[in-house]
């Protein structure tokens, strides 16, 4: 289980990848971009970007700087900068932001709530 797997490299360093056939459960923290094509369940802190590709299935509480979602996501997501819902994406849950960063492409399915809070850390404290 990759726990606290962190790269100290640059933001554009080697990405953390969960491949299509991989199934992971646990807590994942990455300072490098994170690409999920497989299945993940748990909690994610992506200090950079999280990408859930079309085959990805994620059920988690996530904090990310940026997110690009093309697969299925269920859970809560705190996004600092920007979240993009691609046409193939299915988002089910709660999106928590401070400033508007949501982009939904035509066909993308956003089901749930989009809320704005002043203090993201406070919102995450309940987790």
């Amino acid at each position, binding site marked *: 289980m990759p726990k606290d797997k962190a790269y100290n490299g640059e933001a554009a360093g080697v990405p953390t990848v969960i491949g299509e056939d991989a199934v992971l459960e646990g807590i994942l923290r990455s300072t490098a971009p994170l690409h999920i094509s497989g299945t993940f369940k748990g909690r994610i802190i992506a200090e950079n970007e999280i990408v859930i590709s079309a085959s990805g299935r994620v059920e988690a509480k996530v904090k990310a700087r940026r997110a690009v979602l093309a697969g299925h996501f269920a859970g809560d997501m705190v996004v600092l900068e920007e979240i993009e819902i691609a046409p193939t994406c299915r988002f089910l849950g709660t999106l928590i932001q401070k400033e508007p960063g949501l982009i939904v492409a035509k066909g993308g*399915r956003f089901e*749930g*709530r989009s809320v704005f809070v002043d203090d993201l850390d406070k919102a995450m404290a309940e987790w």
Partner: protein
Amino acid sequence: MRSSREPLKDDKAGPGERRNPHSLAVISDGAVLNGFLRSTASIRLNGSFQGTIIADHELIIAPQGRVKANVKARRAVIAGVFQGNMAVLEELEIAPTGRFIGKLIQKEPVLRVERGGRFEAESVFVDDLETIVASWGVAPPPPPQRSPGPDESIAVDETKL
């Protein structure tokens, strides 16, 4: 702003309902309206509106528009501020200047948010939009064509109430 939008390709309105998709019901900048608005033409809100809207074609809330309402629309473009419940059949576009607060009700995914647009709402999927809309307890919708005039648009242009 889109003053001359292309007509929608597939207007599924019943016979006689689709007269002139170009015609507009406009609430101008500076106008304030409370009430019930229904149009088979495009509805463009530049001013303030409070009440209930049924847009059989399209609802456009311009950047200056402020709308607090229960809305049912085939298509909607929000460039101003909307607050309330909105049931959308085909597409809801939140423009970069737009702000949507409340609840979006849809059957299939209709939401499109452009960068900068603020969607602060619940987004739900239901099988039957009509039941939801009926539950708002709005006034019974008047028939789209009250008089056999050449143009069915409800012109509220620059009306000072």
